[in-house]
């Protein structure tokens, strides 16, 4: 009787430890919702087998990202959807950047630094009242770079241009 009780207690403690250990990980599993009606695919490809569908506003859990795709879990299904079809964060959001987005961006824990030293507001009224500042505009202009300097900067970051025609509003039919 007593040994059995201890065992249960041990299990309980172990379980607690595990849940504490894994709590930060499970917190990363980000919630989101569908921005539009879309299909779920079994794999992250446009021609992959259908794995269900999403309806606008439906809440989901984001499992992982791969290229242009997110693997998501809904109440009914798990599958891949283009990442632009998903709004990250809970439906009624707090004012904090939350979940994996914050973790991935290295912002988790930094908090919001509020510094108001020398800062005037940018409300409409304040913008209307603003006076021209010649010294500041000259400073701004002193930073102007040439196209060639831009190119050198891109080269330093191994950025390579690709062919990509401007998106137009009429391509919504392509799915």
């Amino acid at each position, binding site marked *: 009787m007593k040994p059995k009780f201890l065992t249960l207690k041990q299990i309980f403690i172990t379980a607690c430890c595990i849940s504490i250990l894994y709590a930060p990980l499970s917190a990363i599993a980000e919630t989101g919702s569908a921005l539009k009606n879309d299909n779920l695919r079994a794999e992250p490809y446009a021609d992959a087998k259908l794995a269900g569908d999403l309806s606008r506003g439906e809440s989901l859990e984001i499992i992982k990202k791969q290229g242009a795709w997110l693997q998501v879990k809904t109440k009914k299904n798990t599958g891949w959807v283009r990442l632009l079809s998903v709004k990250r*964060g809970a439906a009624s959001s707090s*004012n904090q950047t939350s979940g994996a*987005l914050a973790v991935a961006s290295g912002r988790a824990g930094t908090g919001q630094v509020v510094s108001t030293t020398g800062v005037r507001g940018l*409300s409409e009224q304040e913008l209307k009242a603003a006076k021209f500042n010649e010294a500041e505009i000259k400073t*701004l202009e002193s*930073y102007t770079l040439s196209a060639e300097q831009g190119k050198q900067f891109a080269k330093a*970051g191994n*950025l390579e241009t690709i062919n990509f025609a401007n998106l137009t509003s009429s*391509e*919504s039919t392509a799915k």
Partner: protein
Amino acid sequence: MNLVTIKSTRSNLLISTLLASLLGLLSLQSAAFDLKGALKDAVEKELAPKPESTQANANKDGNTTTNQPAFNWKNPSKEEEIALGREIAGNLLGAAPLVKDAALQKYVNSVGRWVASQSERPDLPWRFGVIESDDLNAFAAPGGYIMLTKGLYRKLSNEAQLAGVLGHEIAHIVEKHQLRVLQKQQLLNIGAGFLSDKYAKDNQLVSKAIGSGAEISARSLDKTAEYEADRLGLSYATRAGYEPYGLADVLQTIGQTNKEDNSIALLFKTHPHPDERLAALSDAAGIRLDAVKEGKTLENRFYQLKK
């Protein structure tokens, strides 16, 4: 040729006068912005993009009353566009100065210049600045002046996101969205006789023409202009070699900011909700981004703000 020019000037004056009398019932403020129906159409017709070759004639049009070159509101030259933008940007800097961090400003100019080189107007003298404000916002003024707040910069975590934000503002300038709002306002003001003779004589002094100051750079544009700037901004950043989702990332972040937060009030007031912008971007992108696989985010060289 001259005859034709004069005739067209007269017909413009006639249209302006007609507009003026119709506008008589509206207040000065609403005259500029609440353009409705026929009024709006008439002005838009006046401002329809014209081929470059007509520019020389158009310049003469503006000079019939004085010997000095007046600001050509109907068809401003590139130089006039830059002068106008400088005035607006200078006013904005009067409200919030540049962050005193030359390395930051140089970095933002490097990214911006590279993205602008992928636009349809690579020849403008593009300049970028981060300004002292905790608000989340970015501004574009005609001729290549772009500013974003320190508050918005703080929300970014990689270079692709910065490229996306700057791409959106670059697109506003490429498409002359703000310039057209100003043109409409000015042509209506001139037509409505709001400008005194003295004022009209000085009208090459842009500072007087934009009496409302820096507020123009934050004024609401048509929703369609914002969606267009999103699509083009994404396109420029993608062509520049960045991961295409930078702008979308930032819209996600903005969408998660409390709407009641003062730092975002103006942005929400002047732009469609981030969710609508994301959905529109998603529709426009369709399958186009599936093939873009080599885009870079470059968080490793993203400039970190000094504390």
